[in-house]
């Protein structure tokens, strides 16, 4: 399939002011009350909610079009195949990939990274080789590489961060060496919200012939991500952080690299022929999709991409940034409150601690006020270790959050101080 250029937002859409209240009404779950109060959902970095359009698309698929894909000649099987492969094309356009052969459906970001670890890194790497990551990574971009290190004898090298939670670019460069075989890094930190300067980090790696995997799970909901402009080799993201369902995610891989990799899992759908002596493998991308895939998940993901691009990703990003700035300003005024992660460029995430109140107590008190935040280590224990905190509270903003949500968050934090006064 040939690539078409990105469709530019229409001038009318660009000129229309962002109406967060209207967007909020697209999400049925946000009408729920929690402990008698309206729901202020500030945990989208863990998992976002789904708009009506996504729920409807998934229901329509299940109600009218479901069967197994790539198998039958009957109508439903063809409908299901068209829906599933149509979703793949939708993802290709979303990422501006060259070809749908570069789009592999997986369970989520974690599975995508494990696929690259086991199918790309494990057969190639050995003692003396290095995998370079950053100190901001989610466990999903640490543990699969630790496993490869155990399996092959290669080493994991970590580019450090500074007290703002920013990767120190010079330190990153200093660790890119002749031994570096792969760079694997987040585009946006889930724990702190730091936006990494991936464009120049990728360019530096590529200039040395080092391939780069981007964990874009926290980036795709907030900013346009173009794999050709980024020039990355692999990119992973999850549906459920992008207003889509759980259990579906995407691995983008440069076609030549994917073609050079052995299959990861074996089974149906990933083969052309099977005998008891040997199997021949299917073409890309199906070579990496053993077994019946998550069709309804793919349909939901495609609908979520339609929805997000309908709102305009830049417009959503700008709205979230305004909420981030307002919330940061108001929270900073609260005595004893410390924001962890103060990078110059941040996605809409605020990680914070409150003196004398453990994040878990804070989380419980906020919940009593209807405010849902994440508390804990955010699957980024090394980040917590660096800032010498056991845990933080984390508020993250999405397309459906409003100024009112910020006000409620700040009031709930004040309430926590009263309870513990």
């Amino acid at each position, binding site marked *: 399939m040939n690539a078409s250029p990105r469709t530019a937002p229409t001038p009318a859409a660009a000129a229309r002011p962002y109406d967060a209240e209207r967007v909020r009404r697209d999400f049925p779950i946000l009408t729920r009350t929690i402990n008698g109060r309206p729901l202020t959902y500030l945990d989208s970095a863990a998992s976002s909610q789904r708009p009506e359009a996504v729920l409807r698309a998934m229901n329509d698929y299940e109600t009218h079009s479901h069967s197994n894909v790539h198998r039958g000649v009957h109508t439903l099987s063809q409908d299901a195949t068209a829906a599933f492969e149509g979703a793949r094309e939708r993802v290709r356009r979303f990422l501006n990939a060259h070809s749908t052969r570069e789009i592999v459906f997986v369970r989520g970001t974690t599975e995508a990274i494990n696929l690259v670890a086991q199918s790309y890194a494990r057969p190639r790497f050995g003692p003396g080789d290095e995998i370079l990551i950053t100190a901001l990574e989610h466990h999903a971009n640490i543990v699969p590489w630790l496993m490869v290190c155990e399996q092959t004898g290669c080493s994991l090298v970590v580019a450090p961060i500074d007290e703002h939670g920013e990767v120190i670019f010079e330190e990153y460069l200093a660790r890119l060496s002749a031994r570096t075989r792969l760079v694997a890094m987040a585009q946006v930190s889930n724990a702190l919200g730091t936006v990494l300067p991936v464009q120049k980090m990728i360019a530096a790696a590529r200039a040395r012939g080092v391939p780069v995997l981007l964990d874009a799970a926290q980036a795709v909901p907030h900013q346009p991500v173009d794999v050709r402009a980024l020039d990355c080799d692999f990119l992973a993201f999850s549906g459920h952080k992008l207003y889509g369902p759980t259990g579906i995610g995407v691995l983008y891989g440069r076609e030549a690299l994917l073609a050079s990799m052995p299959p990861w899992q074996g089974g149906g759908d990933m083969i052309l022929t099977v005998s008891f002596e040997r199997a021949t493998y299917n073409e890309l991308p199906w070579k990496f999709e053993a077994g019946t895939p998550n069709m309804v998940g793919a349909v939901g993901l495609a609908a979520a991409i339609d929805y997000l691009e309908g709102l305009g990703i830049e417009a959503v990003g700008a709205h979230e940034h305004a909420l981030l700035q307002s919330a940061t300003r108001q929270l900073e005024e609260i005595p004893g409150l410390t924001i962890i992660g103060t990078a110059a460029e941040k996605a809409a995430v605020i990680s914070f601690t409150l003196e004398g109140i453990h*994040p878990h*107590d804070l989380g*419980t*008190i906020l919940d009593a006020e209807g405010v849902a935040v994440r508390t*804990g280590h955010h699957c980024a224990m090394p980040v*917590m270790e660096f800032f010498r905190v*056991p*845990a933080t509270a984390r508020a993250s903003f999405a397309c459906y959050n409003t100024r009112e949500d910020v006000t409620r968050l700040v009031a709930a934090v004040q309430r926590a101080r009263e309870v*513990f006064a």
Partner: protein
Amino acid sequence: MELKDLYRDVILDHNRRPRNFGTLSPADASAEGHNPLCGDRLTLSVRLAGDRIEDIRFEGKGCAISTASASLMTEAVKGKDRAAIRRLFESVHDLLTRPDAPAGSELGKLAALSGVREYPARVKCASLCWHTLNAALEKGGTVSTEGAES
């Protein structure tokens, strides 16, 4: 659910001014408790007189529920023998997990933890210290809330 049922004055007081905080040296038994989900850590050290706990101290960092629970526990178990501590743990466990459990008189100040059962995500915070005490009295070592029954 009222927040004040969870964060009673007794809890807030023991969180602010934990009793028996520190370490005993030398100690007859000690154990470390860890809740990897929230990063809470707790170290217990115990001095025994035969089968009885003569003295006990705890140290660590945790939320108000885990700190207060540990503080209250150290007060409650001092002077008791293993059998009495086991019975008391059972009463506390019921209090934390059974919706209809009456707060028996044997619980004393520990009854202040009754609000925790309305917050299932917080039960492990309150029970960590008891599991750690069990470990200290049995063989020492480390316990983790993950994989352990709360």
